[in-house]
């Protein structure tokens, strides 16, 4: 029994190790979408600065100036850029690559994605190797044990609970996406780290994976006929003109909601921390700094550590839930009985 489980976990880790480079590649492909956006943002930021800079001159005074600086610093922290800065020690200017009109230069967030992929790959390769050497009777120790807890948590409480029988097929994806999102989130809280999941292109790429896996799961479970029948909601043909657009839009709202949720959560936390820090600079007061900025930003920072885990969990869990809903055979709890027999 124990051996069986160990071999299962071992197989999982192997697949995980195989999937990660794929993810890495796709993230490299994701960069064309990434950088034009960043370019627009920086252009927008520059023009915005010009407006804001013009405004305080007409009006009054230092407060507006402080706000402008705070806004600049926050935007610089949130947005992607071609410079990876290690503030007091200098900065690395990353190469700008443009091929066929697509800006696929390696930006700060792309570097972060590669670092995350490398960490996940190395950690799970090592752990997989340890499982190979381990005799079935000994329990794993230390870090391996901690990772086993996470893997088992995703396997039992997320995949098995939401997808049901046949969940093993989707487990590698769910595990990979959980570890990847978790590490991206946590790396944003480390000094000199960037929050790659605070970039909407990254979260959109991840949600697109979930979308395609969900559709393939639905097609496999119901066949092309059942898949199309599902789009009608099982209603009378007279209602199809309403039902089909609604169900069709419903297909796309799920990944969009996943995208926005992760992106907004990770971005909002960083904005809140920096705003709290900058309150003391805007008000120019030590009392505010000691009584408010420091304790509140530490509190939000601790909350952010929790949010990093929670959002990774929610992303994985909703992915599992969507796959489970798409591939469910009999129980359509939230549909009317007419929809059940396809």
């Amino acid at each position, binding site marked *: 029994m124990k051996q069986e489980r160990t071999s299962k976990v071992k197989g999982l880790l192997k697949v995980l190790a195989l999937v990660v480079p794929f993810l890495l590649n796709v993230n490299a492909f994701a960069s064309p979408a990434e950088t034009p956006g960043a370019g627009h943002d920086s252009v927008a930021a520059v023009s915005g600065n010009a407006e804001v800079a013009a405004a305080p001159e007409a009006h009054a005074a230092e407060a507006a100036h402080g706000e402008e600086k705070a806004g600049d610093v926050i935007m610089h922290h949130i947005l992607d850029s071609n410079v990876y800065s290690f503030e007091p020690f200098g900065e690395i200017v990353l190469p700008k690559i443009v091929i066929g009109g697509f800006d696929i230069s390696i930006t700060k967030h792309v570097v972060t994605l590669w670092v995350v992929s490398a960490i996940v790959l190395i950690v799970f390769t090592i752990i997989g190797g340890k499982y190979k050497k381990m005799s079935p009777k000994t329990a794993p120790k230390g870090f391996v044990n901690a990772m086993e807890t996470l893997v088992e948590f995703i396997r039992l*409480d997320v995949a098995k609970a939401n997808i049901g029988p046949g969940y093993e097929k989707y487990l590698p994806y769910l595990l990979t996406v959980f570890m990847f999102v978790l590490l991206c989130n946590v790396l944003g809280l480390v000094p000199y780290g960037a929050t790659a999941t605070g970039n909407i292109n990254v979260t959109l790429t991840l949600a697109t994976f979930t979308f395609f896996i969900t559709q393939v799961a639905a097609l496999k479970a119901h066949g092309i006929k059942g898949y199309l029948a599902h789009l009608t909601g099982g209603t009378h043909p007279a209602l199809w003109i309403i039902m089909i657009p609604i169900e069709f839009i419903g297909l796309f709202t799920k990944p969009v909601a996943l995208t*926005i*949720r992760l992106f907004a*959560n990770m971005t909002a936390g960083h904005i809140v921390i920096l705003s709290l820090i900058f309150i003391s600079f805007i008000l120019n007061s030590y009392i505010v700094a000691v009584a408010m900025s420091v304790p509140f930003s530490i509190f939000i920072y601790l909350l952010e550590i929790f949010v990093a885990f929670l959002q990774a969990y929610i992303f994985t*869990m909703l992915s599992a839930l969507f796959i489970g809903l798409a591939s469910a055979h009999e129980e359509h709890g939230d549909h009317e009985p007419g929809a059940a027999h396809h």
Partner: protein
Amino acid sequence: MEGLGLGFLGAGIGAGLAVIGAGLGIGNVAASAAEGVARQPEATADIRTTMIIAAALIEGVALFGEVICVLLALK
């Protein structure tokens, strides 16, 4: 200038309204979940999962609103 000021005001009010909606919604979810757990402690795990999913969906809608407000404020 007047229009720009009104835009910022709209963004602020919109953000507040979205938070009120999300707060009411998640509050309702949490209250019902606490009640459910108190009545049926053995169903805690199921209730927690359902609660997190519902809260995440509510939060998602609220975040759509917040993103629109941020876009308004940055434009």
